[in-house]
């Protein structure tokens, strides 16, 4: 019987080793219920008590060897099948991708959101107000009475004698101060209107973002500190700011604020027209007249305000030289952002 088992082993292993061997058939032929090895085991009863364990052990070895060979062969076959599949599935990775349609947020919105987020991070909330506004909120409450020459700097669209298209977002500040007690820390982004004919640098409609802080003990140093943080976040950590005296009727002292040119760092280049500085903000300490007009005691509270043009920042940031592009909405323009 030993010889029989040994020849089964030889025969089976040889079959398994063949190319294209049918492993399932081989398994049945030798290990199945009616298989050759099973038949040998059935005949074990005829063996003597001494022979039985020896032959039994051999039979088990043979079975284990055949099973191992079957397993190994199956593993080989799967591996080569996978290899063939992977080879067949090879792609030309240089062919263009089929991208899903993706839209683009308008560059002005992108800049506005960036500005908003910087100030939100400093504890500001966003205040809104009407674009069609009363003369009172746009001018009078801001220390610009009727027939005041300061009105010349903001050519205004009128609806009726006392109704106009707001020429600045400052009326939102007044409305906020009327309804909210300090501490106040708001920004008011939005559309403003001035009767400027449309050209490469002027638009009768543009976007402003103004900020207002009112609280006890607010100083001009706080204004500078706040704007410095803003400038660094917006234009880079190495940005410096510069205050120049100016006049706005609703702030005193007032300043025009420049940031160091973020292209040349202040050495002078094309962007900053060789000056090293770019004017981007108007700012100042809220005029006591404005505070008391809104029912806030200027002896107890002080505050600062600032304002900037969103288009101006976007134009500087993206190198856009014509403001009209923002309102043409040519998709070839929009998809660049």
């Amino acid at each position, binding site marked *: 019987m030993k010889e029989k088992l040994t020849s089964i082993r030889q025969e089976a292993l040889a079959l398994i080793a063949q190319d294209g061997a049918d492993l399932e058939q081989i398994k049945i032929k030798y290990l199945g219920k009616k298989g050759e090895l099973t038949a040998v085991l059935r005949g074990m009863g005829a063996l003597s008590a001494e022979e039985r364990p020896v032959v039994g052990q051999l039979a088990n070895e043979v079975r284990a060897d055949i099973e191992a060979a079957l397993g190994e062969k199956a593993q080989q076959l799967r591996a080569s099948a996978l290899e063939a599949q992977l080879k067949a599935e090879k792609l030309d990775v240089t062919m263009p991708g089929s991208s899903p349609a993706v839209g683009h947020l308008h560059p002005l919105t992108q800049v506005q959101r960036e500005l908003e987020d910087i100030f939100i991070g400093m504890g500001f909330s966003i205040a809104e107000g009407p674009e069609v506004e009363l003369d009172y909120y746009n001018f009078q409450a801001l220390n610009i009475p009727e*027939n005041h020459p300061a009105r010349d700097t903001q050519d205004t669209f009128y609806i009726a004698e006392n109704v106009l298209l707001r020429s600045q977002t400052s009326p939102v500040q007044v409305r906020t101060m009327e309804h909210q007690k300090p501490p106040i820390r708001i920004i008011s982004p939005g559309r403003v209107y001035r009767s400027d004919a449309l050209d490469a640098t002027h638009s009768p409609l543009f976007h402003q973002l103004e900020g207002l802080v009112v609280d006890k003990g607010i100083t001009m140093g706080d204004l500078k500190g706040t704007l410095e943080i803003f400038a660094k976040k917006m234009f880079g950590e190495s940005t410096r700011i510069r205050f120049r005296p100016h006049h706005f009727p609703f702030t005193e002292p007032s300043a025009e604020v420049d940031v160091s040119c973020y292209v040349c760092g202040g050495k002078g280049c094309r962007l900053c027209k060789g000056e090293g500085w770019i004017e981007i903000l108007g700012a100042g300490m809220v005029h006591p007249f404005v505070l008391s007009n809104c029912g806030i005691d200027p002896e107890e509270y002080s505050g600062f305000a600032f304002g900037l043009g969103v288009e101006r920042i976007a134009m500087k940031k993206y190198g856009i030289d014509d403001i009209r592009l923002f309102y043409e909405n040519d*998709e070839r323009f929009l998809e660049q952002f």
Partner: protein
Amino acid sequence: MNLSRNWLSDFVNTDGIDNQEYSDRLTITGSKVEGFEVLGSEIENVVVAKVTAMEKHPDSDHLWICQLDAGARGNNIQIVTGAQNVFVGALVPAALPVAKLPGGVIIKDGKLRGVESHGMLCSMGELQLTAHDMPGKEENGILILDGDCENRLGEDICDVLMLRDTSVEFEITSNRPDCLSVIGLARETAVSFDRELTVKEPVVKGCSDGDSVNKYLSVSISAPDLCYRYAARVVKNVKIAPSPLWLRMRLRASGVRPINNIVDITNYVMLEYGQPMHAFDYSCLDGAQIEVRRAQNGERFQSLDDIEHTLDESMLVIADGKKACALAGVMGGANSEITDATATVVFESACFNGASVRVTAKKNGMRTESSARFEKGLDPENCMAGLQRACELVELLGAGDVVDGIIDVYPTPATQTVLPFTPDRYNEFLGMSIPVEHMLNTLTKLGCRVEDGKIYVPSFRADLGCMNDIAEEVCRIYGYDQIESSSMNAETTLGGRNAKQLFEVNTEGALVGMGYSQIQTYSFISPKYYDKIRMSADDAKRRSVVISNPLGEDTSVMRTTALPSMMEVLARNNNFNNENVRLFEIASIYLPKESKNELPDERRVLTLGAYGDTDFYALKGVCENLLHLAGIQKATYTACTDNASYHPGRCAVITAEDGTLLGVFGQAHPLMAQNYGFSAPVFVAELDFDTVFAKANTEKVYAPLPKYPATTRDFSFVCPEELEVGTLMSVMEKAGGKLVEGVALFDIYRGPQLGEGKKSVSLRVTLRASDRTLTVEEADKASKKILNDLKFKLGLELRA
């Protein structure tokens, strides 16, 4: 304001400060310099020369060969000229090679028709001068210089004609009318560079001949609310003549045209003191009197520039016994203009109400140097100094004899502003530590008197009225760059966006993710745009907020719908041949109230627009996604056939569960599309963003994930084309009851075997219970109920 640095040096010594340094420093202390121009710098090597001999050019009938004596620059210089006004003995400006003239002209040695010419004789135009700068001189020929140049041969023409100066252009803010003057800017210069300001009080000798101004004139103010002060003096024996060269050149450097001595004096004083002046021809004044009064409604007035004006009672005039002779603070009248024949002059130096002058100038369409100053509010205390300076100049120029006596009507003298001097408070407020000494020096140099803790503000600084104003003064001179940045030492505030603002940001993000790009369009449109979108003639939305002073019709009304703006942008993109365009805008519309004095209702709307590779259902899918994002689960889509902007068979309105209208969308009506140049389909949607937000449910609540498997059942029906799938689905949902998790459409088929007007609709119903696996019996029971309802409610049978 253009400032002559020569003139400035009358009041403050700025030696050693170059133009750039001067401009930078003044800008940084608050007087913004726009730029400066070095006058005369374009002229080089042009000198005074005398024509010593002339002969005709042998080959020309108009050229002259001149020999010139240019003193130290050479004798017997030969220059050929074509001018005909040159004569032997004439003193002329000669450009000697290599010479430079304005406009980059270079003069070199040359030959004219074979004759050597070593330079060029110059006309006034070639030196950039006008007949106003050089009165009485030939404009078309060579500039013949005055005889007193005889002993200046060879000297540079720029020195001889006083052309060298620097004109500094300032942008003066409206709160500082005092800086619209040489003295005002001299004061700023002095404080900025810590130098001394010297302003001499004008001295008028007078005639001492017993004559008195009161014999000539009486003045009354009948509108003291509009005229705070009126001062006048009379000059007799006037000799109208050109002003001297130095005065003309100062006016020229300031951008003012010289006219004659009397008019030039008024302009000179306005520029020097910031006090607008006027001069009347006394002989034209009726009744030896001046009345400052309101104009009568309809009163006629002809201004100096010969323009007729019709006045009204809001305007102030300077009148004699019979007529208006000047529009107060704006312009004099043609009826009392200074002429060459003027023998007696009345100088006016007055102070008028700023707002009144501004309105008057605006209504009459003539903003003048005078009105531009008055409208900012001038100092009544400055009137007398201006008047005296004018008379001093009259005597200096020998333009006439100043009659003794001054008329000064000043009903309510200005009060002195006194503010507390609180240096600690300034520093605290500014966040600075400016030394008190520095503050005192600044305020004193600015003209304030500081005594006993009080600041006595000078009358010319009406803008200084509170602590903030003083803080600014001490700060700007000390340096804004010295302000130390600090972080707010204040109560914490919670920043952020409110729910609505967040919703807008999220919606934008979702739309961008779905392939839509955001646009920004103007809020104002043309009223014609309503026709273009086929809005019906009686639609209430045609009533818009109207701009009374628009730039043009295209931007004359505030839009009540954002659809036309979207269509314009789509059309523009189509014209640019941009393919597959998908756009959105979240914008405001402006719905007027009854009265135009009321503020309109401003609402946010979301507009979508697309053409190219898209269709109705793609757009509907976007709307569905947006409502899903808003947490609006049960919106209804109903066919809409009567919106003229939309295809009647491809338009739906969206309503919320409670019936509130949320929006409309669909394919643009082919006729509207045509109005925008489209022949292919265009798809648009208009959602009322405010309402969508109001109905939004952004509170998310977790629904447990299903534990038990779902069973699906597929149904196919043949039904009439008119039957909407939505109806089928809702009948099935209701019929299946709680077990129906969803009904989905998976096929629609139309074919000849179904017959005309029929379609086959295939739907899959998903059934699930949350607490058990459904048995086949339960699922069958639900299916049966569904089929039953379809049969009885819609008459449908399963497709065989």
